[in-house]
């Protein structure tokens, strides 16, 4: 990796975990969501509706994706703040290439997403049958997905100038993508109109692949289609995010 990008990645990770209370508490809430909410509802959810798992197992794997989503997507908010506070100008004055900054931000967002989700992996490993190979494969898929989320976060944050509108847009995108995905409930439980959106939602494919890859089964089928959608999403949105970011650096703020 380029040295400049390394510096940007290290700084992104450090600043993210500076707010240890925020990150830690967010994880505690997700863990409680799983061990209380999903545990209690497990007794009332038929196993066949959640792909042969219990609702607790289903939810535990889905919440990893939700957690990654939050950590990586928010890199957009950080880039926005850096632009508003003038920190980006300071970054540009350093002997680091612009490409290093762009690559560094995306990688930093993805790595911090993975680091945030690690405690949830521990919980998932307790709840579902898995192996270290399964977990590593799953982290690999999530890393690619997180790259796409960083691109999406940067694109949406830099598409609007006003802070309130940026916040509203972020809330809308997060809510729409998570709630209309299979992260928290299976597609069979959704009404038909919601299923249409779910099938167009990249979070659905990321969640489905994580569930297939993480759960160890001797008859498991490799989720090639789901993973290829995740890779395509990461490639397209990651490139768009980089382009928007580079346009902002080169030509001033994007209005």
């Amino acid at each position, binding site marked *: 990796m380029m040295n400049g990008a390394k510096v940007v990645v290290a700084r992104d990770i450090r600043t993210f975990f500076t707010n240890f*209370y925020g990150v830690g*508490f967010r994880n505690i*809430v997700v863990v409680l969501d799983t061990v209380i909410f999903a545990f*209690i*509802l497990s007794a009332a959810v038929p196993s066949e509706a959640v792909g042969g798992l219990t609702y607790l197992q289903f939810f535990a794997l889905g919440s990893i994706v939700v957690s990654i989503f939050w950590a990586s997507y928010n890199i957009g908010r950080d880039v926005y703040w850096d632009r508003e506070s003038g920190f980006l100008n300071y970054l540009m004055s350093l002997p680091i290439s612009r490409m290093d900054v762009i690559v560094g931000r995306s990688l930093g967002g993805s790595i911090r997403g993975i680091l945030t989700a690690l405690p949830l992996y521990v919980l998932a490993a307790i709840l579902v049958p898995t192996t270290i190979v399964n977990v590593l494969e799953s982290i690999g898929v999530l890393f690619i997905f997180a790259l796409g989320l960083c691109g999406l976060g940067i694109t949406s944050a830099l598409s609007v100038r006003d802070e309130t509108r940026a916040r*509203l847009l972020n*809330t*809308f995108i997060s809510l729409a993508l998570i*709630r209309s995905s299979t992260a928290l*409930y299976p597609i069979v439980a959704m009404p038909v109109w919601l299923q249409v959106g779910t099938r167009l939602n990249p979070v659905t494919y990321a969640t489905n692949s994580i569930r297939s890859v993480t759960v160890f089964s001797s008859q498991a089928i490799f989720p090639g289609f789901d993973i290829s959608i995740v890779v395509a999403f990461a490639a397209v949105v990651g490139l768009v995010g980089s382009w928007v970011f580079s346009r902002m650096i080169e030509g001033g703020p994007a209005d």
Partner: protein
Amino acid sequence: MLVIAKRDFYAHFSNFSNNLWLFMFFITGAVFWAVSLGRLVLVANYFQFLIVGLMVLGVYNTSFNYMNVVSTELRRGYMKYFLALPLSRGGLTIGRVLAGAAEGIVYVAILFAFAVAMIGFPSLVGALIIFATVIIISFCLSSLGLAIATHFKPAVIDPMSDALGVVLIFFSTLYYPINLMPQPMRFVTMGNLLSAGANLMRAGFGLQQVSMTDFGVLLIWGLLFGLLSIRGYYGQLKELG
């Protein structure tokens, strides 16, 4: 008292379009959540059960988070401006509690319309029960928020309110009926004001029986938090001069 309540109320709703958007997002999320879980969970009338739970969650989000407004004012010294106004300290204090409650009530009115569309109209008695519950629970939550904002140091307010929020929400009947919970959890849930509010509102919609215990729980907490918030806010005002 009314001047302060009106000022807070207008300040909150001054940016109407942003508030409306955020609220619409909340409703959309709630619909997605409720229709999907409603079809998944094998509990009778779970969809209706959850819709009412989400209504109470809406009140919680507005009234309890009123604490952020007050704690920010305390931190920035804005309270001194209030003291310069020709208003009594008691009026200022009660005005703040009422403003927080009023904001929650406005949101719940919209949520109520949404719940009626999903569940159907309650009876006249049911509507009165819902109305009374909303007023008491909004008052309880806004006074709880105010009590926290005025009794604790700024650094402790966020962790304290988050931890309390987790206990209040997860140990309540907002998302799941009490009979699904493990035994030790039921004890906490029965004394939880969010459970009491949700149970009474469900009773108002005819989904379960009215329980006087729930009214008792709400009144006790309302009284306690009301006294604590008035004591805390009045104390802050006295400290400032």
